[in-house]
């Protein structure tokens, strides 16, 4: 599965400039809408409201209600309509407020979008992009906080993206739209307000390969999306103790880039996977299994995992924080992998996340 695209040069992007993840996403949408008249954005509150998370603010005024299309609260109908429109030559970008709500459209995503090409013997590719938020950390409780992208990464026929950086937020949409098959983009809710410099002239983002965000030699921290900043912070902590952690950002959760993961493990000989999904049957489980299958003899320690506790995400801040992968837990898991001392408090937090036992 390869996707290519050409990016129109934006004079405003000729030098580094300050932006946020939210604004970067909006700029990507604006570029897509300007570049291809077949592109339209459809979803709940994407128009007048400006997007539930403010991503599409101002686009209605710029592109009008036909192309910035407010949909009824009918996930199955409007996702299915996006699939039908894609079959008929449009390039829909469908926004679902959160991954929890996407379950109401799961039939359309799995039984139609992911399946039609194969089931029709190659006749019906479905060029749709479906965006949604995922993840916890904002005290939204169980029905707005789960990380189910791993479930979607289970499904053949889909490409699953998780932009974690400003650059990926800005430049992943174009190759996603150029992909002839359905692409799901998971935006971690805690990232929208992240601000920083958007590097100039990044060129098209490669959606076939993972990225090494920080090189290292002692342990590979393999992660994606909302956990990337935590893994990078953990790598800083570890560096203070003389442990050199390499941070691998998967970016694409399906298909997984076995090569980049494998090359990293071959360099560091130790791996810790950080995944905000539940540990049981998680993406972290899949990566751990692949590393073990393909790189067992490179490994100097068992593959570690830091995942969410096996509990529906609670509201109370203390409980939510305890349920989620945190920097301390990542540090502890990395130290365990390299055989170093593990601080008691961090150890407890990490163990809880690892075993799924609350208390």
């Amino acid at each position, binding site marked *: *599965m*390869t*996707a*290519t*695209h050409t990016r129109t040069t934006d004079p405003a992007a000729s030098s580094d400039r300050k932006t946020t993840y939210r604004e970067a996403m909006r700029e990507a949408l604006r570029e897509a809408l300007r570049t291809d008249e077949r592109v*339209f954005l459809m979803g709940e509150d994407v128009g007048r409201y400006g997007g539930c998370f403010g991503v599409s603010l101002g686009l209605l005024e710029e592109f009008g209600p*036909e192309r910035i299309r407010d*949909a*009824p609260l*009918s996930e*199955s*109908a*409007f*996702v*299915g*309509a*996006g*699939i*039908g*429109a*894609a*079959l*008929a*030559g*449009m*390039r*829909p970008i469908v926004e679902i407020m959160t991954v929890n709500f996407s379950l109401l459209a799961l*039939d*359309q995503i799995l*039984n*139609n979008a992911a399946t*039609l*090409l*194969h*089931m*029709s*013997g*190659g*006749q*019906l*590719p479905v*060029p749709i992009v479906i965006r949604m938020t995922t993840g916890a950390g904002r005290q939204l409780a169980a029905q707005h906080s789960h990380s189910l992208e791993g479930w979607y990464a289970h499904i*053949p*026929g889909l*490409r699953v993206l998780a932009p974690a950086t400003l650059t990926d937020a800005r430049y992943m949409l174009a190759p996603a*739209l*150029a*992909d*002839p*098959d359905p692409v799901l983009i998971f935006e971690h809710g805690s990232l929208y307000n992240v601000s920083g410099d958007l590097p100039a002239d990044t060129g098209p983002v490669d959606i076939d390969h993972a990225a090494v965000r920080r090189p290292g030699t002692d342990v590979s921290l393999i992660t994606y999306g909302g956990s990337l900043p935590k893994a990078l912070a953990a790598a800083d902590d570890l560096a203070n103790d003389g442990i050199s952690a390499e941070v691998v950002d998967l970016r694409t959760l399906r298909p997984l880039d076995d090569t980049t993961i494998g090359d990293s493990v071959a360099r560091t000989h130790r791996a810790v996977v950080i995944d905000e999904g539940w540990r049981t049957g998680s993406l972290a489980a899949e990566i751990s299994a692949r590393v073990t299958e393909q790189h067992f003899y490179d490994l100097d320690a068992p593959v570690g995992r830091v995942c969410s506790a096996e509990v529906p995400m609670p509201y109370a801040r203390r409980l939510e924080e305890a349920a989620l992968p945190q920097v301390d837990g990542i540090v502890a898991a990395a130290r365990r992998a390299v055989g170093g001392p593990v601080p008691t408090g961090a150890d407890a937090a990490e163990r809880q996340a690892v075993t799924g036992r609350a208390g």
Partner: protein
Amino acid sequence: MLRVRRFEERCVELYSAARIRGFMHLYIGEEAVAVGVNEALTDADAVVSTYREHGHALARGVPAEAIMAEMFGKVTGCSRGRGGSMHLFDAGRRFYGGNAIVGGGIPLAAGLALADRMTGRNRVTCCFFGDGAFAEGEFHETANLAALWELPLLLVCENNLYAMGTALARHQAQTDLALRAAGYGMVSWAVDGMDVFAVEDAARRAAEGIRAGTGPHFLEMHTYRFRAHSMYDPDRYRDKAEIEHWKERDPVEGLARRLRDAKELSDKARTALEDRLSAEIDGAVEAAEQAPDEPVEDLLKYVTSPVGVSRP
């Protein structure tokens, strides 16, 4: 209609001989709906169907040979052996299957209609589904969305009185489905689905209305399947007398009778037609039997588009 009937009768024989496997749902008794509706559509229009779609596919012009080969799981099948009886597709004829999730094709059809509406193409998308689908949220979500956005969508509900084995009155709070659809602000009619002329007339008026920009239309076709839900179904939930009663209104024989009475179909012409269809279906079966299997090495083909292909 006779082609659909004879094709499926042959399918029964082949299924019994284990040449066709999987789930197979026969349309026998409902032929007037597919044929009458398709008469009102053009090649540029689109059709979305269910898992009981042999009749819809044949009426849409999908060759019997391609359908038969699909049921044999052969590479020459209209879905290259990936779909089988429940998943017939023909992109060139704008026949979008072949959906085996009850109600799952309805939002898809709305999307096809939405694309036409957004691009100013004056086309109709026709979606067939059964009375069972009327209980699914996807119907109601889509009816609301289609009426709200005035989509060029023709919703054809084949009310054959049973959702698998559950009678209409046992699965619908209000059994007047056209009345309920009208509640969404759609033009809705109930039609005698055993009379191909009544079906064609209703579908033509609906299609004209849709092309004139009056939004989605809903047709409730009163019809009946003479055979069980699927080949696995022992059909214990229906009274034999009820089936016999409906068979008296057989749409195929009813049409033949009318044409004979009007002296438009002589016994000789009928025999010639039967012979021609028999030869066509024989040819389809023979071609399907001789067609190569899809090589197992191609198992993973079409999961995603080939490398290097980008969107057109």
